[in-house]
Structure formats: C-alpha cells, structure tokens
C-alpha cells in the first residue's frame, strides 16, 4: 500500500518496469482484438453487387484467414460456391442501412440458380420472432409476373406470399441464398442481375 507514493519518487526500479510491461501487453492485446473486430466488421465480402456482398472462396480450402474468420462468425457451416452462393445485405440500393422503421421492396428476377431464397435476420444473425412465423421468401413461394419478375414487400405488417416481416425498429439484414448457382453467377457474382432493395418510406 505504501509502495505507490514511494515508487513515484524513487528512480525507476523493478515494480515500475513490471507495471510498464504489463500495461504494454494489455494495451497491445486490447488493440489487437479491437483491430480484429474492426476487420471482421469492415466488410461482409470482397465481391460487391449493389448492396449485396459475397466471397467466392467461402467454405473453400483456399479461403484466406480473414474470409474464414468472417464466415465462422457470420455464417458457420456455409457451403462452398459449387453448391451455394450466399449474398449478404445490410443496406438498401442507395447504401442506407436497413432499418425496421422503413418499408422496402425486394424486386427482381431469378438470379441464375436452380433455387434461391431471401431470409431476414436480426443483427445477431438469428431469425426474428414474428406472429406469422415467416422468415423468408423463396423461388418456390414468391409470385412471379408474366415477365418473370417478383416484388417482395419487407415491412413489419403485411400478408400474402410476397411479404417478409421486418422488425418494428432497429437494424436487420438480408441473406440471399442461391443454391446450385449457374455458370454466370459463379463466374462473376459481382455483375449478375440481383434483386434490388428499394426503400419505400419510413415512419
């Protein structure tokens, strides 16, 4: 107890250098973990297509450590791109974060895979509790017009097959799963035609 004031006046001795080493190590580890968190959050993938992001080496043994870590955190047990390509979006077509206080339309056509689904997750990566017990729309359930286009409404309230319930407030995100992706989708996921996420209005 009496050591502290004493050490302050004494020349740098052992207790002081131990303290300094300890502070250096703690600071270094904290900084390293902070950087890791930041680098995992910086992006959801190296390939961008509008608001959608993906990585072609998800699940691949050739994946770099950053991709592998990002997938382990956000999509553990994701399939490699021969089986499925996963696109992630947490912003609308204009880059504004997806927000429960706003309504959106997800519209477009089949993205060039045998099957697809769009699933809504909360910001912890789990499905949102809602009265309709509905968490996704898919190629099997969506209504398509004569031109092949679909339009899904993302809103806290709605009905019918083309409605995806969103939270009344707070952030959320969408995952587009493209199962058995076609050649074009696998070759260049950044430039294929993916559904647009259009903000309609906010409360």
């Amino acid at each position, binding site marked *: 107890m009496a050591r502290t004031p004493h050490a302050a006046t004494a020349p740098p001795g052992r207790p002081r250098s131990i303290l*300094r080493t300890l502070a*250096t*190590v703690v*600071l*270094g*580890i904290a*900084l*390293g*973990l902070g*950087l*890791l968190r930041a*680098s995992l959050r910086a992006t959801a993938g190296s390939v961008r297509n509008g608001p959608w992001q993906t990585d072609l080496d*998800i*699940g*691949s*043994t050739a*994946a770099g*450590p*950053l991709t*592998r*870590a990002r*997938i*382990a*955190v*956000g*999509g*553990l*047990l*994701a*399939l*490699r791109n*021969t*089986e499925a390509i996963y696109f992630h979006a947490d912003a609308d077509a204009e880059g504004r974060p997806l927000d429960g206080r706003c309504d959106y339309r997800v519209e477009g056509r089949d993205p060039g895979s*045998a*099957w697809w*689904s769009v*699933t809504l*997750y909360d910001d*912890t*990566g*789990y*499905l*949102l*509790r*809602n009265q309709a*017990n509905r*968490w*996704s729309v*898919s190629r*099997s*359930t969506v209504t398509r017009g004569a031109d092949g286009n679909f339009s899904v409404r993302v809103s806290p309230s709605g009905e019918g097959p083309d409605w995806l319930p969103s939270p009344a407030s707070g952030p959320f995100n969408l*995952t587009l*799963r493209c*199962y*058995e992706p076609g050649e074009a989708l696998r070759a260049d996921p950044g430039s294929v035609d993916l559904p647009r996420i259009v903000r309609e209005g906010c409360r």
Partner: protein
Amino acid sequence: MRSLLRPLVAVLAIAAATWLVALHALPLFLMRIATSRIRSGALAEARAATGANGGATGSTPSGASADRRMDPGLAARVLERDGWNVALPAPPTTSDSRTIVRPSPDLLYAACVYDLAAGPLIVRAPHAPTYVSLSAFAENTDNFFAANDRGPEGADGLALFLVPAGDATPAPAGTTRVESPSLRGIVLARFRVDHPDRLPELVALQRRVTCDPVR
C-alpha cells in the same frame, strides 16, 4: 522521444501478433463451440427421452411435444457414443433455432459431429423429392466436401465414406470416399422444404440420415 517510441513499437507488435493469432484461432474456436452445442443438446434430449421411458407417464406432454421427443433407438446411440458419430435430426428451423448462426428456415438439417480417431464413418442421406445435400466441414470450418442428389447418381441418395487423412481403407461399394483434413468436424445434411405441406414427408426422410462407424 526514444522513451516513447519503444513502448509504442512494443504495443503495435503485440497488437499485430494478437490479431494474427486470434484471426487463425477464431474459426477453430467457433467450430468447437458449435460442436459442443450440438452434442450437449443431443445428450440432453437423449437423457430426457430415456428418462421418460422409465419415469412417470402421467406427465407425458401433449401429442405434438411427444412427437418431437427423441426416438429411443437414437437416444441410446447418442448416449452410447457421447454425442459423437451419430446423425442428429434438428427440429424444423424457427426463430427458436439458436445453435448455429444464420439458420435457413427453408432447410431441414441433420448434423453428425464426428471424431475419426476410432476409424472411418459412413454417412448416408436418402434421395428427397426437393433437394438434399451432404457437406463436410473440417475443424477449421473448411467445407472440404459437398454433394447433392440432383444429378443421376443422387437418385439412390448420398453415401459418404469419411476417412481420416492417410487412411487407406477402401470405400465400400456405392460410397464416395473422402479424406477429412482433421480428425474432428461436422457433416451436415440439408433438405429443402419448398412448401410447408411437404414438411411431414421431409421430416421422415431427414430421420433416415445415418452416420455410423464402419466397424
């Protein structure tokens, strides 16, 4: 100046080392968490199922809950193998599914948490009218194998002969031989639920997934 520079360089060096080690350790760590969550969930269900057999029947829950109770044969295998090397059908995905992040509500999953220390395993999934895939993940999360039943060879279902790296056991007829880069990992079967009406039929198929030691 010098007295400030040295600790600063030390902090940055430790930060870089921490970043690198944590980055490489994170997938292994999260895979271990997933493995232990799947196993402990199955063990708890198995204990509940076998406990109920010998316990009071007066507290048997309603039909719906009883239906979700683990099959006694499966419960016995789970307990015998301590949750390893056994196919575990997961309940249909809902907002209550919290074992693995970003579960798909359009898929029915069956997982086999494996340990090849005792030798090869055979994992089988039946053909499904919608889509079924078998995929295998090493302990560092790498998806080193994936196959689905959409091609002609999937008409009889999928059969994976999973061996530890360097194991020379020949594959039994009709199975695909795959070496796992790590002794431990997870094999996952995915069944597509394209319509809720199909769920009972697909749950029956999901329960036919097997994961068993060869010997």
